[in-house]
């Protein structure tokens, strides 16, 4: 591994320390378990490449977000493939979550946030000020790090947003509640206590309920902001399997700090990095390419720095 200072626009001290650490890690890399893992991933990626060429669901063009004058991320151009899982990775504070919050215009809730560039969802310009944000958010759902079911019953958590979106027929609502809860594997666990408060569920169940609540609106894309990081390992793996099962039916964008998770589930990986005072997209490609032959030296350092 050869890295020179010239590779970075803004080589901070921290970067240097980080790279030193990476070097140490690399020397320990040649254990058989890792190779094994890699093999699995290769198989995984093989399956994806066998599928037909995916179309673009969301296309961002030179997208930047500023809080007052301070940029969160700048000049992100990315096309997000339909029916695939795209993972956004990178250190904290490099704009991954901010990027997500632009795609469903949730950044509208933050005062002093200003966006530049363009986001196309199909033919729709997401950043159009005249856009019907409510309709957009029905098409692009979002899941958060901390499960956030409403303080209502389990049934009402799903039914209430449906009613708000004009589905009033009780039988139709009941059937949507049942099928979405089945989709997230929660139906058997809660079918006898749909009237109980959702807050009584465990963290993992709450997160699955939140996913069910989003799926009930039949969105085209799901934005997930570290959906597993507040969960215990078992719940986390259940939710991860659930996310995998969403592939093809939904376009999933997931922010994760867990590189192993990104390797396991992502068709595409985007690496964000804090550079020259703001977050930048420094590498984007298929999971196979990013993890096996990273183009950018920082990517290589980052993915090797944390052992899978």
């Amino acid at each position, binding site marked *: 591994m050869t890295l020179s200072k010239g590779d970075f626009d803004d080589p901070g001290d921290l970067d240097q320390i980080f790279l030193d650490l990476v070097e140490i890690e690399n020397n320990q890399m040649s254990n058989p378990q890792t190779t094994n893992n890699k093999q699995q991933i290769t198989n995984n990626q093989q399956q994806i490449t066998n599928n037909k060429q995916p179309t673009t669901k969301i296309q961002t063009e030179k997208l930047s977000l500023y809080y007052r004058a301070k940029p969160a991320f700048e000049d992100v151009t990315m096309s997000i493939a339909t029916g695939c899982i795209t993972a956004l990775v990178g250190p904290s504070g490099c704009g991954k979550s901010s990027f997500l919050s632009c795609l469903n215009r949730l950044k509208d*809730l933050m005062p002093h946030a200003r966006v530049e560039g363009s986001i196309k969802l199909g033919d729709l310009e997401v950043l159009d000020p005249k856009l019907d944000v409510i309709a957009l958010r029905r098409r692009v759902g979002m899941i958060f790090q901390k499960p956030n079911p*409403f303080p209502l019953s389990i049934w009402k958590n799903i039914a209430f*947003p449906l009613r708000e979106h004009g589905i009033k027929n009780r039988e139709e609502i009941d059937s949507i509640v049942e099928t979405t809860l089945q989709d997230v594997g929660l139906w058997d666990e809660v079918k006898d206590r749909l009237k109980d408060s959702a807050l009584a569920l465990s963290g993992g169940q709450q997160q699955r309920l939140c996913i069910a609540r989003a799926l009930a609106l039949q969105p085209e894309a799901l934005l997930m902001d570290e959906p597993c990081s507040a969960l215990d390992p078992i719940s986390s793996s259940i939710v991860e399997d659930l996310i995998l099962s969403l592939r093809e039916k939904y376009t999933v964008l997931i922010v994760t700090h867990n590189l192993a998770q990104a390797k396991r589930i992502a068709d595409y990986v985007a690496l964000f990095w804090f550079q020259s005072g703001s977050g930048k997209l420094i590498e984007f490609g298929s999971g196979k390419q990013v993890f096996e032959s990273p183009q950018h030296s920082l990517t290589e350092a980052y993915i090797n720095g944390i052992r899978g």
Partner: protein
Amino acid sequence: MTLWKLKISSLFNRLQSQADLLLISILRILATITGAIVLFIVFFLILEAIPVLQDEGIVPFFTDSSWNPAEGLYNLTPMLLGTLFVTLGSVLIATPLGILSAVFCQYYAPAKIAYFYRRLIELLAGIPSVVYGFWGLVVLVPLINSINPPGTSLLAGIIILTIMILPTIALIADASFAKIPEEYLIGAASLGLSQWGTIVGVVFPAAKSGLFTGVILETGRAIGETMAVLMVCGNVVQIPRSIFDPMRALTANIALEMAYALGNHRSALFVSGLGLMGMIIILVVASEIINEQ
């Protein structure tokens, strides 16, 4: 060396625990005094109410032909109903007004206006009740008089009380909305729920217990309010047949007659005081039950 240190630290601990003991006993005494005051007041009320209750029993307070203590007639029903009507009317109007004003403050008003508005409501809470009563007498009563004489009426009482208890419910609703976790609101927004849909479907259920507490506190204030009600309601002892009829509240009854009441008359006023106390106790118990749920 270490032994010294140990000794010093144990001495210090003992001193500290002695200071704690002193503090605890002072706090116990203060708490006992506070609790005893309430008990003494109730005890005193009962003591003063006993003579008339022994002479007449409880039934005449509801069945006598009128309130005329000089002739031994003690019907409190008109005053009881007066208090009930004026409280119910003002709570029914003030609750939605107060809650909606808090909704406006929290979710619709720009930050500067919300800040100014809150200070204004706090000011409303601080105005002495006699000033409200005076304003009611000078402005409200003549206005109602021009619509339907005499002007001093149940309606005037309801309007004055509404204004007086509005800050209570508005400020409590505002505080309970502010306590709602932000995740709920962000979650609702990301599901594409409208602002109003979020408020009705998520905010109100989440703030339910706070809102109930607000309603109970404003009801307590409305029941207990004396001065303003006395000044604008006309104080005729009768069951009002319309909102334009004058009426007398229990509190006003005590304030008006206490100065010259003697014997069983005086004792009967304490019975009505006991009745008011009973209503407040019921409200406090209700709010405790709601808060525990």
